[in-house]
């Protein structure tokens, strides 16, 4: 296997995970980019990816970090900061340039979620719900007229978007959903409710799944649809830089032209988008782990106990070294899979594996960091307790760990 193939850059992109890739993580200079003097690697496969990382990393340090604790306390989305992301052109990373996006890939999206989550996973979750669950999802499901109406205001950040799949009675068992849409003349009448929906309060527009007859269909619902409302925000343990709430449909009238891709097409949209969502959530977990590694390592050198820096104690070394190894494994997996996910490439196995492995890494490394910091880690002075609370969500949202186990096993057995 050539290096380029190994990193998923060949024309033929497989849908399964290849292991034994010797060059992962090393700087590789691709022949076809000889004109650029930059070393390319798995994490920054092109100069544009590297520049994107530098930009979002600087933005995170300068503008995201300082507000994270405050918005966590308030349990609110920092909407003006959110609009800054739009000004930086980050709402349509995966949208082709002809339609006002950047025309980049899943790796680019992963980079942004990774870097933002080093400071504020809660804020990043609102970004994910908007840029991936709405914009990316909608883009690949919509026709030209629909794009004309909804793409511009969501790419510009004027409108906040979200996606409604989960219901009070059906989460993991999403295909059992009970929200219905019945066609009446030029409209669909939608009834039911969705819950735990990120950006429900701030959102202007949502991609919503409902049953038309026995099949799942997708619709765009905006605030102008009569019979549509949202609940008060639901309070939660972490990810408090974003809000979540219910979407309520009471004989809600949705114009028939808001059906995305025909009745019954909803399932395909849902499944395709879940892959990039899971990768982005994995990248968020990785961001949390990176930040916690940095904090605990620095602290272990500064903090003196029994006359020596605590990193000299074997038990502390175990937190640091195990945390590091886990984080590095997660990094390689997430970026490797990101090279093999896209609108035309199905890779449920890869994205489920990435999230199944990476979600606990953020949580465990945050826990290790708290242990290494002792009482300080439990206090709000350090971001560790916030990251610890945020990290847990990734084992639940976008699919629980158990759902990934179920999917992976099903796919592996099916491939026999």
């Amino acid at each position, binding site marked *: 296997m050539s290096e380029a193939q190994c990193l998923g850059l060949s024309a033929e992109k497989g849908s399964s995970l290849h292991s034994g890739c010797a060059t992962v993580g090393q700087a590789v200079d691709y022949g076809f980019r000889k004109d650029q003097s930059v070393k390319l690697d798995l994490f920054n496969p092109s100069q*544009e990816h*590297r520049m994107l990382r530098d*930009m979002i990393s600087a933005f995170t340090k300068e503008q995201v970090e300082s507000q994270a604790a405050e918005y966590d306390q308030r349990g609110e989305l920092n909407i003006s900061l959110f609009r800054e992301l739009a000004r930086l*052109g980050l709402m349509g990373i995966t949208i082709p340039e002809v339609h006002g996006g*950047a025309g980049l890939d899943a790796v680019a999206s992963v980079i942004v979620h990774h870097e933002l989550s080093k400071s504020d996973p809660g804020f990043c979750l609102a970004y994910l719900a908007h840029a991936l669950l709405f914009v990316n999802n909608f883009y690949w499901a919509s026709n030209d007229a629909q794009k004309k109406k909804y793409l511009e205001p969501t790419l510009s950040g004027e409108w906040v978007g979200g996606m409604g799949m989960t219901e009070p009675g059906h989460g993991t068992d999403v295909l059992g959903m009970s929200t219905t849409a019945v066609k009446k003349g030029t409209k669909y009448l939608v009834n039911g409710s969705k819950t735990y929906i990120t950006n429900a309060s701030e959102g202007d527009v949502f991609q919503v799944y409902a049953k038309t007859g026995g099949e799942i269909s997708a619709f765009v619902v905006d605030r102008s649809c009569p019979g549509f409302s949202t609940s008060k925000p639901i309070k939660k343990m972490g990810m408090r830089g974003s809000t979540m709430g219910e979407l309520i449909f009471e004989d809600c009238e949705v114009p028939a032209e808001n059906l995305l891709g025909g009745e019954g097409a909803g399932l395909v949209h849902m499944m395709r988008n879940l892959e990039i969502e899971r990768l982005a959530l994995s990248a968020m977990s990785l961001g949390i782990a990176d930040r916690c590694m940095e904090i605990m390592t620095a602290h272990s050198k500064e903090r003196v106990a029994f006359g020596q820096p605590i990193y000299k104690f074997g038990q502390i070394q175990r937190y640091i070294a195990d945390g590091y190894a886990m984080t590095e494994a997660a990094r390689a997996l997430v970026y490797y899979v990101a090279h093999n996910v896209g609108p035309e490439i199905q890779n449920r196995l890869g994205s489920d594996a990435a999230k199944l492995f990476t979600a606990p890494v953020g949580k465990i490394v945050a826990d290790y960091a708290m242990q290494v910091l002792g009482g300080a880690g439990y206090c709000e002075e350090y971001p560790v307790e916030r990251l610890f609370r945020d990290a847990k969500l990734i084992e639940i949202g976008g699919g629980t760990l158990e759902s990934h186990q179920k999917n992976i096993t099903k796919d592996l057995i099916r491939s026999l």
Partner: protein
Amino acid sequence: MKILVTVKRVTDYERKVKIAPDGKSLLTDGMSFVANPFDEIAVEEALRLNKAHGGEVVVVSVGPKDSTQEIRKALAMGAHRGILVTAETVDSDVYARALQQLVEKEQPELVIMGKQNTDDDANQEGQLLAGYLNWPQATFASKEAGLDSADEKAQKPGLVVDNGQLTVVREADGGLEHLSVDLPAIVTTDLRLNQPRFASLPGIMKAKKKKVEEFSLGDLGVDPAPKLTYVAYSEPKERQAGQIVENIDALVDRLRNEAKVI
């Protein structure tokens, strides 16, 4: 107005530099590099002037081939095209002489550069260039309105160009100086002139299509021999831990007899 602006690739000021075993150079392996922060302010100012007066912003870097990264960043911020002058060792004088050749070739009305490069902190490149070109110079450009002012939020330039004249505000001890120079001129930027913008993602995507020309020092007829040799590097002395003294008398005693400061 055509503006030439510099971006030098320098070692990342957030990382600790390591000295090579021979003690005569710095290790670049594993080092990360950034655009000189003062140069980023220069780029930002050039872009603001360009918005107000039109014309062209040309970014120039003198240094290793990898400096294209810093040029690309400035292009992503909005500059129009780039020029890289490849050079191995660059002291202030080689730097200024290379720029002199480019200025003569490009004929800009204004050159904006950082007041110093954070790698050697020499703070003389702009002045040397003004000397070689025999152009007026206004160094340490700052501005009256602060970085949290409405003018700054509206991205208004701090440099004022009017009728072939340029007005520059400089911070001086206890006040501000207002200098007026005839164009063409050299300006070097201080820290509080502006807050550089982030390169937007569309800017990054556009940057790859922008032209970057490349020259060697030889192509420009510049003698590559530096005038400065680095004889030795040494680490700063490690700070001693503080001591807690029992009482004021002990403190006075130590200050007088040990530290010998009173």
